[in-house]
């Protein structure tokens, strides 16, 4: 743990505090990644900036067209939110797969995204929700499709000191699913995960959004398979073909957690099962 941890009261105070701090600094939200890294001796910042209680980053708000989830809202609070439940079915389906109940009381979606891991359950589900991310740096704000935030393993488009303020999920009537293969029944990093959101109209797909975890350098938005599904009826053949297509879209690796060929195959199986669940 670094010698210095600062905790500004507001965003404004944060921007004022920054120039006085060591350049080797990191934001601390829920701490579930950064403290673990620290315990393992791989987190070497000289200063942590605790943003977990910044009022500007908390709360779940609704407008006519979107819901906004503050970047430092605890995962367990999202789990309990009626608005999130109504408008983010894929995200809600991912939450039981997200770490453990005690960690969900600490962890945040902001940290889940900023950590830049391809296996992030919350973020992968949010990509399937078609979410946007709102970023802030001193007075400047910008908005990106969430899928574009990720550049590679542990690499994001965040600029030095830029902060994730909120996630915006467009309100649209859709179905969602999140399926994952982890190392045990729950509480584990996925070997492969599939998040799907689908707008159906008379049995046909109006819009499909597929995202995959742990099978590419980033939480992967499956462009081709998502586009291919548009306009199709969810028949067993279509589902099988979509599964075949998605397997060609991913680029898994073999590491200590799983094997590339297994991961690729599981993307197909999980997508098939997710789409099947929308039929019944």
């Amino acid at each position, binding site marked *: 743990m670094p010698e210095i941890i600062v905790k500004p009261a507001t965003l404004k105070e944060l921007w004022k505090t920054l120039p006085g701090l060591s350049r080797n600094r990191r934001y601390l939200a829920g701490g579930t990644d950064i403290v673990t890294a620290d315990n393992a*001796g791989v987190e070497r910042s000289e200063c942590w900036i605790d943003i977990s209680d910044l009022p500007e980053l908390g709360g779940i708000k609704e407008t006519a067209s979107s819901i906004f989830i503050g970047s430092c809202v605890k995962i367990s609070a999202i789990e309990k939110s009626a608005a999130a439940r109504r408008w983010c079915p894929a995200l809600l389906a991912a939450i039981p797969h997200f770490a453990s109940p005690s960690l969900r009381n600490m962890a945040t979606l902001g940290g889940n995204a900023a950590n830049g891991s391809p296996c992030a359950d919350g973020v992968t589900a949010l990509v399937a929700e078609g979410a946007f991310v709102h970023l802030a740096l001193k007075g400047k704000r910008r908005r990106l499709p969430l899928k574009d935030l990720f550049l590679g393993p542990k690499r994001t488009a965040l600029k030095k000191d830029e902060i994730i303020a909120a996630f915006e999920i467009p309100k649209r009537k859709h179905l969602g699913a999140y399926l994952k293969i982890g190392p045990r029944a729950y509480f584990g990093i996925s070997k492969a995960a599939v998040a799907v959101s689908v707008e159906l109209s008379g049995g046909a797909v109006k819009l499909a959004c597929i995202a995959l975890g742990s099978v590419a350098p980033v939480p992967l938005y499956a462009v081709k398979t998502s586009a291919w599904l548009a306009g199709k009826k969810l028949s067993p053949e279509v589902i099988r073909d979509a599964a075949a297509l998605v397997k060609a879209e991913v680029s898994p690796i073999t590491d200590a*957690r799983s094997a590339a060929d297994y991961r690729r195959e599981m993307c197909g199986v999980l997508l098939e099962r997710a789409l099947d669940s929308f039929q019944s």
Partner: protein
Amino acid sequence: MEKLSFVGKSLPRKDALIKATGRAQYAADRDFAGMLHAAAVRSPRPRIKILSISDKAARRVPGYVTLVTYKDIKGVNKWPVVMQDYPFLPQGEARFAGETVALVVADSARAAKKAAALVEIKYKELPSVADPLKALEKGSVKIYGKDNIVSSFVIKKGAVDKAFEKAAFTVEGEFSTNYQVHAYLETQGAVAVPEADGGMTVHSSTQCPFYVLDAVAAALALPYHKVKILQTVTGGGFGGKEDVPALVASHAALCAAKTGRPVKLIYGRKEDFQSMSKRHPGWARVAYAADKNGRITACRVKYVLDGGAYSTLSPIVLWRGTVHAAGPYKIANVDIQTYAAATNKVPCGAFRGFGQPQICFAQESLIDELAEKVGVDPVQFRLNNLLAPGDKTITGQKLNSSCGLKEVVQAVKRRSGWDKKVLSPKRQGDVVTGIGFSATYYGVGLGAKGRYLDRAGAFVNVYKDSSVTVNVGNTEMGQGALTVLAQITAETLNAPYDSVRVEEVDSSKVPDSGPTVASRTTLMSGNAIIEAATPIRERVFKTAYDMLIAEGADASKPMLAAGGLFSMGGKVVDFKKVAAGCWDRRQKMSEQGWYAAPRTTFKMEDGQGDAYVIYSYSADAAEVEVDLRTGVAKVKKIWAAYDVGKIVNPRLAMGQAQGGILQGMSWAMFENLVYKNGIMVNPNFTDYVIATTADKPEYDIIFIEKPYAEGPYKAKGMGEVPLIGVAPAVANAIKNACGARVRSVPLLPEKIWNEIKKG
């Protein structure tokens, strides 16, 4: 059967309250005035020649005190375990990544860690060997002797080649198992406190305080009477706190001796993973032969354990595996050859089951294949071949009447609904359900290979106020020793359970009682307590009788003693009064006890003779669901039956059984420590996963209590037994469910999926 007041009852754990309320004092909770903190400097590579160690940069860390290297060792730089090849601190060569090369002492743990990271080791990398099978090849890099063989055993009986030639059925298979990490909640740690007379007191989280005593005395070149080891409340052991706490404590003691101040050394989880002992990875080629009636006629085994860089406990772990390598069957012809190979990886040692689970997975998987070839139901096949009282084991040992093997197998068969389930695996969508079986036996205690250590002492002291203190040399590490030993004391003295306190081990109060391993504590310390308490009991009972008479009791009926009360002819007196009466009469109210295990006759040359004094027995059936498309398996239910002799505390025994099953299942299904190029890849609980409560199967557990005449109140040994047979039962269930025979533990979805694909 004698009527018992305390033994056989589910009395509450003695340590429940302090542990549940967080008041228990673990090693890290011990603080002393002027205390310093140590941190280890570790070897970064699998095998290095150390050229120099410099603390130049480390000195700049505020609070830095000193660097401790091999030069600071006053004694012989050899840690006394079994073979003495492991230096306390390496001088020329470090042999695995993570080995402690030096220690930094500073005024805070944080400063010590920071400074340790800045200590510079200049080194030259040396050629290394990672694979135990390659290590045994002729042309391999030699890191141990001339052949990399740390230890080797044989068991030879009958004419094996001939039996295989004549056999109607034969099977052969290669099997492997991976490491298992103990995952105790409390990492390793010790606090060493220098004494004014040049002695050293060490507070140590350990299963084996006397191993710590041996090591600290050796490292500091101190006579034993100047070294005192106090076991702290120990947050889990499972074998992981058998040998290595002696190394950790010696390091703390070296730092304390050099600085003259108390020094605390507490491991982080990562370094604990990288450098502390593990369950050995195992590899085995096993073959069985059977005649046309399905009787097993021969068994041939080659069994190799990956010992790691130093021998530590490998020889005795391997020996236990060797003795049990053919399974609990009557087999006339046996050829078992076993090896522990040296590799440049973390030294492996004790882990619940101690060399048995690895080979049990291989042979009990293969027994199923043999049964299938013969065309007999696998449980019936086992029943046709099991050892029974009067039968001889593969070492030629005749089993006595305390052998409930057939009964435990039959009980599990009946309770699991085996006959129906095994014939019709269920299928629902992509998910199939199957059932699998295993049977095991387990030699209680240290056996022939550890016979010189197989003794234990006890000190029982009844105070004037009738409270009782018991000192033993075996430890509580979560398994319930304090409770079970208090029950045995209370029973023997007829003292109320609440009045008995068994203390954590203080090496200065009891003689060397050997290690707390091999499910031996109830048996060894229990018997030592009975020996100590029996003369006190005689005085107490005589005094009680005299007091009852004095109160006018009718002596025509015998005196009854139960539950802390003595009664006769309508009069009653309690233990408190009787104890005071004994003190008034100036009776001796404290005694020493000693128990040494009976002699064993095993010969190392051919592996024949009595290997252990007594055996416990187990049977497991596992019901497992397999997803045919993902290979993901889930253990739904485990039925288990054990013969561990008399059960002293049913609730604790049930806890041991459930914990052992879960730990065995976790090893079988999930636990996967990965090495790449001699470096541990996942030394953390993020990527080394163990079973959680969500993975927990349903349990159906029963005990068949075959009394053991020599045991304390007829008990045998329990702790390790429940783990051993779980993996093969699960593997056999997976085979039954979907046809996939996976020959390596952990039984990962990837492996099951690959087998299913092969069809």
